[in-house]
């Protein structure tokens, strides 16, 4: 049944977009009807100073997808997220979030940026950081409303950080900060959560709890997480895409050895970014 649906959806894409695709390039996680599609990229190209960062990327993300995107550093993972968020305009191709341009749909996309990119001395409390997520929802020149405040408290509770509400953000551990940034992304009640290297600064102990949290969230929204930590990603997500300028998406739900092997067949320089274990077999 699922296979049929996937094929139907694939067929539709081919007809409408005229995109050539091999088996499963567009296969959705499951389901695949039009209304479930959150993000759609068609033939997206991004260049930095003439150097391509993304080449002919096609991707469809549905509301129940929990997708990991792996690939080497500089492979375009962050770029891909920024394209979906409307922070970067592609040179060519089409980006749609819920059928509209991404910069019009910002309330539906929750973003958890790379951890290291903030000033740890910044005088701001955990609560204020989370409220920031609501700043784009409110008209300019207005204060936050009671609704904003109760939403902020709600998401802090959900990520288990309500007790840290009044602490300065820089005083928390890496794992705690990451939970706060997830809360900040959740406070707009997005339809898709985009995380950039979410566990890079999270110690191993907290990592399992963090993936448990994502596991709970995926009931409500699509989740895409980008990482070069292949081991961690492959054990937690439902599907894996592989990005090294070009995107290879195998649309599989289960991470079997065959799938891993299939993923690694794409041009990712595994030796250069150091996979510490032997999942590769005969590669």
């Amino acid at each position: 049944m699922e296979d049929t649906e996937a094929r139907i959806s694939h067929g539709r894409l081919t007809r409408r977009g005229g995109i050539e695709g091999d088996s499963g390039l567009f296969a959705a996680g499951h389901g695949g009807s039009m209304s479930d599609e959150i993000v759609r990229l068609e033939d997206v190209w991004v260049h930095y100073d003439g150097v391509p960062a993304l080449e002919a990327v096609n991707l469809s993300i549905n509301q129940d997808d929990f997708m990991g995107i792996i690939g080497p550093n500089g492979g375009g993972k962050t770029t891909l997220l920024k394209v979906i968020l409307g922070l970067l305009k592609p040179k060519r191709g089409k980006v749609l979030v819920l059928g509209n341009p991404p910069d019009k749909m910002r309330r539906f996309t929750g973003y958890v940026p790379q951890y290291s990119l903030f000033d740890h001395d910044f005088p701001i409390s955990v609560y204020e950081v989370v409220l920031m997520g609501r700043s784009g929802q409110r008209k300019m020149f207005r204060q936050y409303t009671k609704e904003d405040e109760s939403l902020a408290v709600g998401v802090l509770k959900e990520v288990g950080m309500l007790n840290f509400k009044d602490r300065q953000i820089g005083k928390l551990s890496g794992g705690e900060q990451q939970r706060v940034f997830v809360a900040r992304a959740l406070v707009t009640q997005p339809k898709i959560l985009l995380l950039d290297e979410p566990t890079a600064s999270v110690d191993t102990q907290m990592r399992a709890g963090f993936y448990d949290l994502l596991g709970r969230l995926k009931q409500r929204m699509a989740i895409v997480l980008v990482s070069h930590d292949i081991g961690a990603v492959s054990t937690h997500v439902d599907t894996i895409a592989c990005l090294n300028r070009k995107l290879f998406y195998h649309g599989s739900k289960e991470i079997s050895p065959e799938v891993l092997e299939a993923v690694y067949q794409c041009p990712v320089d595994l030796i250069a970014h150091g996979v510490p274990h032997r999942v590769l077999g005969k590669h």
Partner: protein
Amino acid sequence: MTTLNLLEIMRNPIIASVLASVACGIVGTYVVVKRLVFISGGISHASFGGIGLGYFFGVDPVFGALVFAPIAAVTMGVITRRTKLAEDTAIGILWAIGMAIGILFVYLTPGFAPDLMSYLFGDVLFVSSHQMILMAILDIVIVLVIFSLYKELLAISFDEEFSTAAGLPAERLYLALLCLIALTVVVLIRVVGIILVIALLTIPAAMARQFTHDFKKIMLLSIFLGIVFTQAGLWLSYPLDWPTGATIILVAGGLFLISFFALQRLRHA
């Protein structure tokens, strides 16, 4: 001289210093926290172009700066954001161009520019009453803008990229913040002068931030510290017959260094 006379002389300088402290305490908090010190230095020096134009066209040089400084600020902001020129390079170039425009127009103005030094280094004892009215109006504008855009400016100060992703017009807000810095420079010109403005934009907030991690409390404490520094400098400079602007800065800088090292010792003790 009687006490009454002294108070008469000091009344305007005292009010002007308090008005300056309000602007530099509020805006200086953003300058320090968002690390805008260099671009603020650029804006304040470039606004000398406005002083020169004021002389040339025969209007109050402070009004010349009022027009010129925001233009310089937006130009710097746009060039550093939208071109590939390195930020510090762009600021350095515009800093110098602004000053050169000022020097040229002062030169082109017939006759002397006797009080030129007071715009460079401040001379609050000779602040005029319409300059004080301008300072008060700018203070009100700054307070109103910060009050109404507080959440937006805090968001872009902490994380511009996330703010954009959350739907805020981050670049426009950044340019608005640079304009507030430009207005603050204008407020401060008579008190410490263009060259020393950067000290009052940084020292009170840098000192306040050692004591609290609450953004609003840093602002309030900065205002208070600004008042302490300017009043101390003012009352010290008068009997010693020292330049007021320089005295204020030396008091501020000295107290900052003492508090900084004292707190360091306390924390590592």
